[in-house]
């Protein structure tokens, strides 16, 4: 072989040797390209699988079955005190009124028949009836056609997850109930509609009544706190470090700290919140205020890093021109550099907010995982956020919760896509290339 390396072969021989290997080398080249294509294909296939799996469950999750009943709104029964107060309505027998309409529609009779028929309708129907009466008292003492959600087991049956063929003792609804459901279906009283509970309902252990409204408000409040804190602080830090900070040990320490914070796992920020805000300051658990502060600390590095990049992208000639006509350094900064860097800063902030919106782990640590029915009215009311709600629902085994969880995920993803699209638009429209 040493002969070859010393080049003692004639050019013809060399050329023929190269030619002999060419076919193999070309096929190797093709194979290598193919590996790349396969890799990208796999990554995209994962993405598609993820979205298809979520959407195929999530889209049905936006709908649920309702039953329409002719309800006779007997005032004496519904409003015993006669003053239309909330208390009086709660004392009244809304349940009985709905049941009566249900028995008429299904033809249920006898104790066990009525019991079975009663299970068809959601426990939330009474509340819905009371609200309808409160909104419009004139409907009292008339007969109204009203729509109520069906129980989640009945819903699962109607969707075909609970099979008719399953032996009666193995399924969650009995033959008698199936009979009534069939009667209702024949009369065309059962409808499959957009689920208003999903959007306007709050946390509930009953799948058919569960909704994301409270979590959505909690997310908005938490993000608002996060934005109010992290945007000004992030921009201020970036401005200071890029334009004013002296090159010394302290500045270097700050920079190292920011880079490290960007690498710290998000759970650790939850521990920080738990130990400092709840443990030492004694603030209550589960409130959006602490959630927002924790998320602000977490997103701060993202905002700082992108804001610094935006400031650095402003050409020095702008600064020189401003300084040249007599502006102070601070005026140059505030009147020229920051406004020019603002699109970049906003983009970074929106991306940081999108991260914060999807974050779950740190919020679990500060107790936003509690079961809270009330919609939070302010940042100091206990609440939960959308990702945590998804986490909690994912634990429930009911089929309808699986669907509603997927639907909630779609809502979350929609918000994230919206935010990222906004970031891209801002970047495209406003960012200047120098």
């Amino acid at each position, binding site marked *: 072989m040493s002969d070859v390396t010393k080049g003692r072969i004639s050019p013809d021989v060399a050329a023929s040797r190269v030619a002999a290997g060419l076919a193999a080398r070309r096929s190797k080249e093709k194979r290598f390209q193919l590996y*790349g294509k396969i890799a990208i294909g796999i990554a995209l296939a994962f993405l598609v699988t993820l979205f298809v799996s979520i959407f195929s469950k999530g889209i049905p999750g936006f709908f649920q079955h309702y039953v329409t009943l002719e309800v006779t709104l007997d005032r004496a029964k519904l409003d015993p005190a006669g003053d239309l107060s909330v208390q009086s309505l709660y004392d009244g027998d809304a349940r009985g009124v709905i049941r009566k309409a249900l028995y008429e529609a299904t033809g249920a009779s006898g104790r066990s028949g009525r019991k079975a028929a009663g299970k068809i309708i959601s426990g939330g129907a009474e509340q819905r009836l009371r609200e309808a009466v409160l909104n419009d008292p004139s409907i009292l003492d008339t007969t109204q056609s009203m729509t109520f959600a069906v129980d989640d087991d009945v819903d699962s049956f109607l969707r075909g997850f609970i099979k008719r063929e399953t032996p009666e003792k193995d399924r969650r609804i009995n033959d008698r109930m199936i009979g009534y459901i069939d009667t209702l279906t024949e009369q065309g009283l059962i409808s499959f509609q957009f689920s208003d509970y999903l959007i306007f309902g709050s946390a509930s252990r009953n799948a058919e009544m569960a909704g994301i409204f409270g979590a959505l408000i909690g997310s908005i409040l938490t993000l608002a706190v996060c934005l109010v804190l992290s945007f000004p602080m992030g921009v201020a830090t970036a401005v200071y470090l890029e334009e004013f900070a002296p090159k010394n040990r302290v500045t270097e320490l700050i920079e190292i700290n920011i880079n490290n914070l960007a690498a710290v796992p998000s759970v650790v920020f939850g521990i920080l919140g738990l130990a400092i805000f709840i443990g030492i300051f004694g603030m209550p658990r589960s409130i959006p205020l602490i959630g927002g502060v924790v998320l602000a600390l977490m997103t701060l590095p993202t905002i700082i890093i992108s804001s610094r990049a935006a400031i650095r992208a402003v050409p020095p000639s702008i600064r020189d021109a401003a300084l040249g006509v007599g502006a102070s350094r601070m005026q140059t900064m505030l009147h020229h550099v920051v406004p020019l860097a603002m699109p970049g800063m906003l983009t970074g902030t929106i991306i940081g907010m999108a991260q914060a919106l999807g974050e779950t782990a740190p919020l679990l640590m500060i107790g936003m995982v509690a079961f809270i029915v009330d919609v939070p009215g302010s940042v100091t009311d206990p609440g939960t956020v959308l990702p945590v709600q998804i*986490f909690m629902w994912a634990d429930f085994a009911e089929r309808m919760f699986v669907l509603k969880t997927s639907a909630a995920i779609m809502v979350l993803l929609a918000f994230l896509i919206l935010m*990222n699209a906004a970031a891209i638009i801002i970047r495209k429209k406003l960012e200047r290339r120098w």
Partner: protein
Amino acid sequence: MSSLTLGIAILIISAAYFFVANRASSSQRAAGTKFHSLPHYYGLYAALLAFLPAFAILLVLAIGDDLVFRSLALDFVPDEVKASKNYKEVIVMAQITNVVDGINFGEQPDWVYAAAEAWKGWDATSTTLRTILVISLSLLGGMFAYRQVNPGFRSRNAVERIIMTILAASSAIAILTTIGIVFSVIFESLRFFALVPVSEFLFGTTWNPQFEGAERAGSGQMGLATYGSVPLFAGTFLISIVALTVSVPVGLFSAIYLSEYATPKVRAVVKPVMELLAGVPTVVYGFFAALTVAPFIRSTGMSLGLDVASESALAAGLVMGIMIIPFVSSLSDDVINAVPQALRDAAYGLGSTHSETVRQVVLPAALPGVVASILLAVSRAVGETMIVVMAAGLAANLSFNPLDAVTTVTSQIVTILVGDQEFESAKTLSAFALALTLIVITLGLNFVALQIVKKYREQYE
């Protein structure tokens, strides 16, 4: 006044001072006096002085008064209660604050009511004092600045100094956060290591954190809590390995294809689409892993005659691998692009094919950067929480079989610290020790990765 109304009040006062000072200087200016600075700087100076000190005091008082009340309220707790064995400060405080807030759970001892009454008194006093202090401070600060509205006063310089201080102060937040993290983790960890020896924590092979005296499930005997963290780290390691076997080949080959072969059009579409994978919230991945991937792997394994746990490391690792593909591909893409074109041209000149150039010239040159990107992906995988909490389970098995259920450091931290916990028990404290090791590992990985990237950059610059 509540803190919020107070905040609004001082904002209004500051705005008023801004107008007054602004007007004063601009009317004198109109009359022909020459001022050092523009009128609005006098206004701003007055507004800043009216707002900042008052706001700082307001913040301190709003956060601080509860702390003071707590220590004061402890004096009301009778000595015999304090001496009793199951005395817990947290519980006593909850009793008192519940009465203060008007939430009653049954009858409380008399001293609780006494403490609550006193608390309400302090609260009223402190609110009054706070209102007076903050409002007067705001008025005085503004007044002081207003009196300085004269031609010789350099208000612009003063305002700029204040703004500079604010900027510097907010950049200190990063340091404060780090200190906060270190404090919150170190102290509790030290207390944990006082209860459990470091060697047992680091080298023990059984993880069974029970509250002291709790009965071990099923065994009928009082189980001893053991805090050997090896199974947790083994589980973390196993899941990370699975994740890497998915993400490294896929990420690396996509990066090579995108940077070397793809047309600009393909690249412009595929790259952002792949980065979508990094933008999906982890809770969504967790849901996907638990509800779609894990059952699929289980049924596939069963049909092959394998024994697959319903929460297998494979499912969690696979999904985590999907999540970190963009971390590997984006950074690898960058470093491959950073390899100088001259190297490629030299290889082509010698007659090598495109793939030979990539494999034998570009990749070796980009290797440090690729390694760094993998390390960053590992650090992401180690710190990832939701996927493992939802899909990997809690069984602390010391196993290297990806079909078994394992648990990880992060999922143990979450399980231990979510919900109500006793602050004093070794179980709770163990979560802080785990967090400490987690921080050390992830920061270590990042440090090494960044050093490699830095060195590599210098090479070609």
